[in-house]
Structures are given as structure tokens and as C-alpha cells.
């Protein structure tokens, strides 16, 4: 089975306290630590487990810049057979459809039985997989939390729906699945593994190599544009308790007694 995983590099919220910049129109990107989008890591692990059971290859692709090579190398250290960078100045400022358009062009130059994405990235949009599937006329399922390969070019999958219930379906290959976190336990990647792939050349494809019309992608093609970032003002907000740890604990105990949390 030939599997493509579409991945993305995002600011790592566990490594950074993300701040607004002084202009108040973007997050502060200086000194930001980035990592692979966590759900994408589950997608790569799932792909690796599927090819280990059957056979085939796992390719990881990202639409981005040279800076994004680090996550491609990380996923190769995890076990992906190859990685590709889809990069062109014309791709900058793409909306979800723009990214899906670039990925579609790459998919059509190759042959994949299965395409995986993470369920969503830091923007919470959860859109590229479904768009890519529609552009390719492949079937699609979101929030996938189990995959079983059936005979006859099909998969049995489950989706995580409301209340944690599982919705089982059969889906024809080729298809696109967005992978929910928790589907597996992504393997650990050590520094040694990263070093082993540090000098592997990562093929890069630009708009002309992919046959993508620059007017359909990037800022030029985007129908959806983000103007700024700001801190939402929702409700009155919590009363932040001040004092020493001990004093705060005493206050919490008093509050718990009042509110029925402590008898």
C-alpha cells in the first residue's frame, strides 16, 4: 500500500507561551519553537503500522518553506520512506483550498492508495483533507480512530463521533482520511534517528514542477484571509487568587466549602 501523509509544522504550544506581537496583528514569531502538528504525527504512525502489516511505502509531504524540512526529517526518522517539500513563493498566503490544490497536483503526479492527514492543525480548521478528497473525487472520512484493511481495495474505518461513540464504515480506496489523535501511540524519535536522516536530500517541487497555476493558490487565489490575531474577551473572566501557595490553598478550601465541593 502506497500511503501519503500530509503534515504541517506548527508553533509548539507545549514549548512556548505564545504571545501577541507588539503590533497586535500576529503572534510573536521570533524565537518560537515549532514542531510537527501533533495529529499529523498520529497519521504518520498509523501509516507506518499499516505498511508494516502489509507492505508498501510511506511518503510525507508538506506545503511550506525550507524551514519545514525539520518536521519532514523527523517523520523520516520515525520511519517514513521518503519526504517531499512542496514549496514556491506563489504558495505563500494560501487558504485551505490553496493548500489542497497544491497537494492535489502532487498526488496526481504519483499513485497513492491512501492519503492521511491529521484531524486539524493549530488553526482548528480541519479542512484540507476534505477539500483534497473532493478535488480528487476520492471518498473522505474525518476523525478516524481505527483502520482495518479489507480485501478488494477497501478499508473498514471508525470515526469518533459525539459522546465518544464509534461510527463504523467501509470506504473504497483510494481515499483520504483525517486521523484523530489517540488512534495509536506514536513511536519515540531519538536524536540518533534524526541524525541518521540529517543529510538525506528532500526533493522539492515548485508550482511549475507540479503544474499548479499560481493564480489559483497563495494569496492570489485565497478567498479566505486572516486579518489579525487578538485575545478574545469572553465573559468576566476568573478571579485570579493572589498570595502564597498556602494562602491560596486556604482560599480554595473556603470556596469549596461554600460551593458544595467540600463538606
Amino acid at each position: 500500500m502506497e500511503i501519503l501523509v500530509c503534515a504541517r509544522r506548527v508553533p509548539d504550544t507545549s514549548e512556548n507561551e505564545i504571545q501577541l506581537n507588539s503590533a497586535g496583528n500576529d503572534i510573536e514569531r521570533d524565537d518560537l519553537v515549532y514542531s510537527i502538528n501533533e495529529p499529523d504525527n498520529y497519521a504518520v504512525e498509523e501509516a507506518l503500522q499499516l505498511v508494516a502489516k502489509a507492505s508498501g511505502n510511506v511518503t510525507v509531504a508538506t506545503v511550506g518553506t525550507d524551514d519545514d524540512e525539520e518536521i519532514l526529517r523527523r517523520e523520516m526518522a520515525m520511519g517514513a520512506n521518503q519526504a517531499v517539500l512542496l514549496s514556491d513563493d506563489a504558495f505563500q498566503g494560501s487558504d485551505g483550498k490553496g493548500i489542497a490544490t497544491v497537494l492535489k497536483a502532487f498526488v496526481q503526479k504519483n499513485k497513492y492508495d491512501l492519503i492521511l492527514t491529521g484531524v486539524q492543525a493549530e488553526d482548528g480548521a480541519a479542512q484540507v483533507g476534505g477539500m483534497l478528497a473532493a478535488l480528487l473525487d476520492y471518498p473522505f472520512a474525518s476523525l478516524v480512530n481505527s483502520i482495518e484493511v479489507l480485501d478488494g481495495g477497501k478499508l473498514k474505518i471508525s470515526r469518533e463521533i459525539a459522546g465518544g461513540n464509534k461510527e463504523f464504515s467501509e470506504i473504497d480506496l483510494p481515499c483520504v482520511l483525517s486521523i484523530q489523535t489517540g488512534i495509536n501511540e506514536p513511536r519515540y524519535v531519538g536524536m540518533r534517528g534524526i541524525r541518521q536522516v540529517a543529510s538525506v536530500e528532500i526533493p522539492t517541487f515548485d508550482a511549475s514542477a507540479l503544474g499548479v497555476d499560481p493564480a489559483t493558490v497563495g494569496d492570489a487565489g485565497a478567498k479566505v484571509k486572516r486579518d489579525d490575531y487578538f485575545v478574545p474577551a469572553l465573559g468576566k473572566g476568573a478571579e485570579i487568587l493572589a498570595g502564597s501557595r498556602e494562602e491560596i490553598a486556604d482560599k480554595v478550601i473556603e470556596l469549596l466549602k461554600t460551593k458544595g465541593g467540600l463538606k
Partner: protein
Amino acid sequence: MPRIFAYIVHKAGVVDDSAAELVAAAKRIDPAANPTAIVAGSGPELDAVCASLSASYGEVWKIANESLAYPNAELIRQALVKVVPAGSIVLVAHDHFALDLSPGLSIKLNAAYVPDVVEIDGVAGPQLKVVRQEFGGQFSTHVRCDISTGAVINVRPGAFKPTETAPLAGTVVDKSSAIGPLTAKRRYLETVVAEAGDVDITKHAVLVSVGRGIQEKDNIPIAEELAETLGAAVSCSRPVVDAKWLPKSRQVGSSGKTVKPKVYMACGISGSFQHLAGLKGNPFIVAINKNPKAPIFQVADVGIVDDLLEFLPELTNKIREAKQVSV
């Protein structure tokens, strides 16, 4: 102004709560909007849904087909592409069904797509201005969307408060014959209900709930000890289940359990909307988080900016001491 449609989800003949919220969202796009509901399904259940919707929508488009008895997004997309006029705005509640439907629908309608919209600022020329959230709700963004070829807008459930209006006497328009044959490359098999688990967190008045801030499985006893002194149960947010530190049955949220405690202690939980969607009944929320900007502090009653690994043991000890004194 483009025509506005609302795709309405329903279950067992009952309209989803989002139906009224989508009317409110439509009126944020255009105060004079008279949105049209679209529903798909089959049999008497669908008729019941149409009858119920005609009280809140002036027009209800009904798509009846045996193959739509279960809401398969692939089939419903094919049906919608046949009936929705070019250039329309289609509103959908941002849930697990919409994640399947809407991205592909926007492609097939050649329309713009904005997911998980929490506020709508209105239309200026060819642009719809909306607000989304990123980074799990820590930051909001103003987003402009070119609606000149239509748009599919996913609206966050609960973000738009329904307005009280007199019931309408809407008309039901049967569009079933317009959709033609539907073919599925994905076929629904069955739904397996989540396991109940060892502890029923929905029955507890006090929950000590842990998130990513608990850091590792070996720290779970810190929360368990506090819970024990309070007579509470330990619940959690999604990352804790993903990491297999606690079973799925302990998860609070839209993909976990819906709980109604009196007191909710959110420990190291950032407070994503998917998590908060599982928290009902207006509990007293105590949030403990190292990050003073964590969205949980916007909804909590009291906040403690501290490391839960330090604070919880302190609190547990103090409660134990207090109990000894009173005995």
C-alpha cells in the same frame, strides 16, 4: 445579498439545537435574512423534522431518499450540490458531521469555506467578516471571506444565541426528485456506543479534572489523592486519553462525556471549546494552570496561576489537616 441556507442535522425525528442558532447566525450576516432550512433523511422521521422546522424557518427544503436514512456526508453532499443555487451561503453546525461534509461541499459548490465561526461581523461588499479562534481558543482572528461565488460557513454550536421570535408557518418544499441517483464510495455499517468504564463521571458532584498539565501518567495519583479527600472523581481532557494515562470513559468534552457537577476543578486544562462543550449545568469552576493566558481562565470562576504538580498536593494536605482538626 446572497440567499442563505441552513443545513439542519437531526436524529430520531428530533431537530438538533443548532437549528435555532443557525437562524441567529443568518441574521448576523443579514438582519433581514429569511434563511431556508435544508434537511435530508427518509420516512416519517424526516416529516416530523420538517414540521418542527417550519415553526422557525419560512421555507424548509426536504430531501427524502431511502439511502439518506443514515446521514452519510458523501451522499448528502451530492444531494446538496444538485439543489443549492450557485452563489448561496450555506450554514452548517460545526460538529463531527460537518467535518465530513463542509470542506468537500465548498469545493463542489466552488464556494469559499470558513470553519468553526464564533462571531459574524456582517457583510461589506463581496466580503463576509467573521471571527474564528486558533490555538485552542487562546487567540481569536478576524477573517475575511470572499462570498462572490457563495460560501459554506460552519458555525460553532453554542456561539450564537437563538432570538425569541413568534413561530412561523413555514412551507415545506419537497426537493427529493431533484437529486437524481446517489452513489457512495463510503458505506455506513454501524455505531458502537462508548464503553461505560469503571467510574461514572456524569454522576459526581465534584470532579478533579486533569489535562496535559499533569505531564505524565505517574502524576495521576496527585489528582486521585485530591479527589479522594474531596469525595470526588477524577476526569480529564482529551490529551490525557490520547496519551493513555486515563481511560476514554473519564474524558469530558464533545467527544467524551457530558457532565453536570457542582464543582469542577480544571487542573492543567487549557479549555478548548470541545472540552467546555462537555461541561453543563453552570458548575463552579476552579482553574489551575501555569499559563495565565489559558482560555480556561475566561470561563472559570476562580483561577490559580501555578504548577498543579505543586499546588494540588498542598491543597490535599491542607484539606486533610482541616478534616483532622474538625474530627
